[in-house]
């Protein structure tokens, strides 16, 4: 290498992109290939120019908690957003643990963003309160451009708003309303949708109570040739024969019900479309009706049997015919035997969910799922990425097996049911350590046990081997504050934590939060709460909101969305990073401790 070494100043200029050497358009193009939000975040910190380019080229943002930032700030930061996702109520709302008046109102977001965000064409609201007025405002501002509208476990609106959407949003490709609480003012909305839309790809009003006319569904199938996915509320399958015949492109269907159980002849004529590979709903389907889906079982990639009446034996029989399953959702009536069949048959399985059946022995075949079934699945289904299981019994060995065989595991959730008095092998310290050490791709983890299920040492293991886990739900773990602190000291990447039914003090919770550098959200219920939450102030710091629901008997009178009283009377803590300061719309039972 001859010549002089170039002066450092000149060298850096030659290498720098920030000084006009590379045109803006080129940078924009490069940025378009950068999708991951963390990468984008890093890029935006390089220099002002890059920050501006990121701001203008960012297409999608997910706001993990709607009180973490104000709409106006988001607008200023990303004026050209095309897609926005907002999450509201804590996850526990899906389990009836959060009163309806918690908040998470869509109104300020729609009011401040719908009009100014010129490029917005996709909106996803999850667990938020959305009114008809909010939807009307959204439609007025964005109706002509809206392609994706997802109201996911939301409440507060009616079918009138859906009519408006159906009439005005003619570019709508995806309408998602799964598990929303919707006031049913009539089924015209579906008729309007069928008449006004010809590009719909996915319609989902699964797990809602909306009543619709099968004729409107047939019309929809006729007009929307590209309809690939329909997940609907309960409707007898025999009424859907026409729709299923018309919708030739359909690949996913959920929501048919078997109201006339025992009368197979009603359902003989049900023929699913030729490309069908996802079946769900099938409410009340029993052994006699099962043959309806046999002709399609070999093609099925996703199967949801959570709402069927199948016995353990029925599960065995059906699943043995489904070697191509990627996703399987069942209740624990599937039993260990059913899981053995899964392990033998479903070699490509990626996601497995085993939900909790009825506790009443008169209602449901008892037996449940244990370490035997879990091990069989682990050994047989090496491609598993997601396992969620409510088990009646468990051993360290089963957890070790999962760690050994399921190397692709990304999301693992285990709940130990409380029916069985004696569990084979507790505490689960060693098992969970083996699982966490071996499943290096794990990002989400839930472990819900019982007292004695995990010692302080075991809890420390979870922290120590938390790796890249970003979300955790822990219940009934540990023995003392010491365990929590040891856990916290290990969790370097944990961003969101939910704790339930634990023995920790407020002081320990606060100190633990301070140990976790990535933590931006924590929810706790069922711990050694004080009346004032005073010790929580130990974690007071800038931008960290601390909200506290004191333990009080009046909470027994809080009312949920379906009119049922709030079951839970235990104190809650919700703390999160926020740029928006104190929440302006806290309900009366939720006290903001910080900022004061």
């Amino acid at each position, binding site marked *: 290498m001859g010549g002089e070494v170039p002066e450092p100043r000149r060298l850096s200029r030659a290498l720098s992109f920030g000084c006009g050497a590379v045109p803006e358009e080129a940078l924009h193009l490069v940025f378009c290939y950068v999708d991951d939000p963390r990468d984008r975040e890093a890029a935006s910190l390089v220099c002002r120019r890059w920050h501006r380019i990121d701001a203008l080229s960012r297409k999608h943002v997910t706001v993990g908690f709607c009180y973490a930032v104000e709409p106006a700030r988001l607008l200023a930061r990303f004026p050209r957003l095309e897609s926005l996702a907002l999450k509201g109520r804590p996850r*526990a709302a*899906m*389990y*009836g643990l959060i009163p309806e008046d918690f908040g998470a109102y869509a109104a300020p977001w729609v009011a401040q963003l719908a009009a100014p965000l010129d490029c917005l064409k996709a909106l996803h609201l999850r667990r938020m309160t959305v009114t008809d007025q909010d939807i009307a405002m959204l439609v007025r501002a964005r109706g002509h451009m809206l392609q994706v509208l997802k109201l996911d476990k939301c409440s507060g609106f009616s079918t009138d708003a859906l009519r408006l959407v159906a009439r005005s949003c003619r570019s709508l490709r995806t309408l998602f309303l799964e*598990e929303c609480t919707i006031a049913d003012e009539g089924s015209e909305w579906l008729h309007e949708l069928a008449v006004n839309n010809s590009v719909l790809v996915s319609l989902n009003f699964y797990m809602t109570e909306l009543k619709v006319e099968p004729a409107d569904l047939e019309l929809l199938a006729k007009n929307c040739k590209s309809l690939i996915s329909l997940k609907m509320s309960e409707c007898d399958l025999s009424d859907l024969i026409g729709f299923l015949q018309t919708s030739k492109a359909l690949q996913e269907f959920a929501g048919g019900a078997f109201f006339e*159980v*025992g009368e197979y002849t009603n359902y003989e004529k049900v023929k699913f479309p030729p490309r069908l590979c996802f079946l769900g709903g099938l*409410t*009340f389907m*029993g*052994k*006699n009706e099962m043959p309806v889906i046999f002709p399609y079982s070999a093609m099925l990639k996703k199967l949801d049997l*959570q*709402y069927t*009446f*199948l*016995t*353990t*034996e029925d599960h065995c029989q059906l699943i043995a015919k489904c070697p191509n399953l990627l996703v399987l959702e069942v209740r624990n009536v599937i039993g260990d035997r059913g899981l053995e069949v899964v392990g033998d048959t479903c070699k490509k399985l990626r996601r497995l969910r085993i*939900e*909790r*059946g009825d506790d009443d*022995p008169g*209602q449901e*075949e*008892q*037996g449940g799922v244990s370490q035997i079934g879990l091990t069989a699945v682990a050994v047989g289904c090496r491609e598993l990425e997601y396992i969620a299981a409510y088990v009646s019994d468990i051993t360290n060995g089963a957890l070790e097996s999962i760690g050994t065989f399921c190397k692709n595991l990304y999301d693992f959730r285990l*709940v130990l*049911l409380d029916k069985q008095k004696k569990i084979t092998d507790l505490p689960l310290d060693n098992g969970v350590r083996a699982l966490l050490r071996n499943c290096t791709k794990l990002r989400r983890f839930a472990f819900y046990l*019982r*007292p*004695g299920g995990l010692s302080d040492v075991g809890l420390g293991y979870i922290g120590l081997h938390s790796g890249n886990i970003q979300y955790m739900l822990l*219940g009934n773990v540990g*023995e*003392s*504050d*010491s365990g929590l602190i040891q856990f*916290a*000291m290990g969790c370097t990447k944990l961003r969101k934590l939910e704790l339930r*039914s634990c*023995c920790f003090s407020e*002081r*320990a919770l*606060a*100190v*633990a939060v*301070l*140990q976790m550098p990535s933590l931006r959200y924590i929810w706790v*219920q*069922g711990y*050694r709460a004080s009346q004032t939450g*005073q*010790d929580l*102030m*130990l974690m*007071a*710091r800038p931008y960290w909101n601390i909200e506290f629901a004191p333990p009080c008997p009046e909470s027994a009178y809080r009312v949920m969305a379906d009119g049922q009283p709030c*079951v*839970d009377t*235990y104190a809650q803590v919700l703390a999160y990073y926020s740029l928006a300061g104190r929440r302006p719309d806290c309900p009366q039972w939720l006290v903001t401790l910080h900022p004061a």
Partner: protein
Amino acid sequence: MDLLERNIKKGDTEEEKARKEEERKEVDEVGERKTKTQDQEPQQQGQGLSLSLANGSARSGMLPMSNPSANPAQLTIFYGGSVCVYDSVPPEKAQAIMLIAAAAAAAAATKSSAATAVKPPMMPTATVAPAAVVSPVLTRSPSLQSTSVATGQPQVVADPSSICKLQADLPIARRHSLQRFLEKRRDRIVSKTPYSPAKSSDGMESPGMEVTAELKAQ
């Protein structure tokens, strides 16, 4: 338990004391310090507060009062006749260490029935940000008021066994979607006639297992 003293210096020289268990590996002899300068003796401002626990080797210690050291975030641990000094310990970590020690001590105390005295875990007032003015008042156990040796007072702040009984109170919550399905199924069984000509099952899989909701002509 042996005499331990903890000493954290902050910018505003707030004085905090607690007892804690030794957790660190290295042990220096008394009098030898890892740090160089001499003014980093364990210092206390205000009342000296030292408590010892009788566990065979009672050890009293009243440390001399003098001005606080200049080093802010320094942690000094006395344990078993040795002293360790750590610089630049962030306040959160220090609190965590104290909490672990306190909980472990309490747990050990409940386990050992022979223990005559238990050191009540005492949490310092918290100041995460040095500039913070407000420190929450934490309840202090009565024995800390005195400077004398406290013996024969089993004082447990955290009783693990009784606390863990609290845990069992919360029922495992059920997801809404499943809940609705199970309720519908119950309603259905109640409302259906018991004499519909449904096929009966092929027999019980095993004793004690009930066949599900299909109507049986029983």
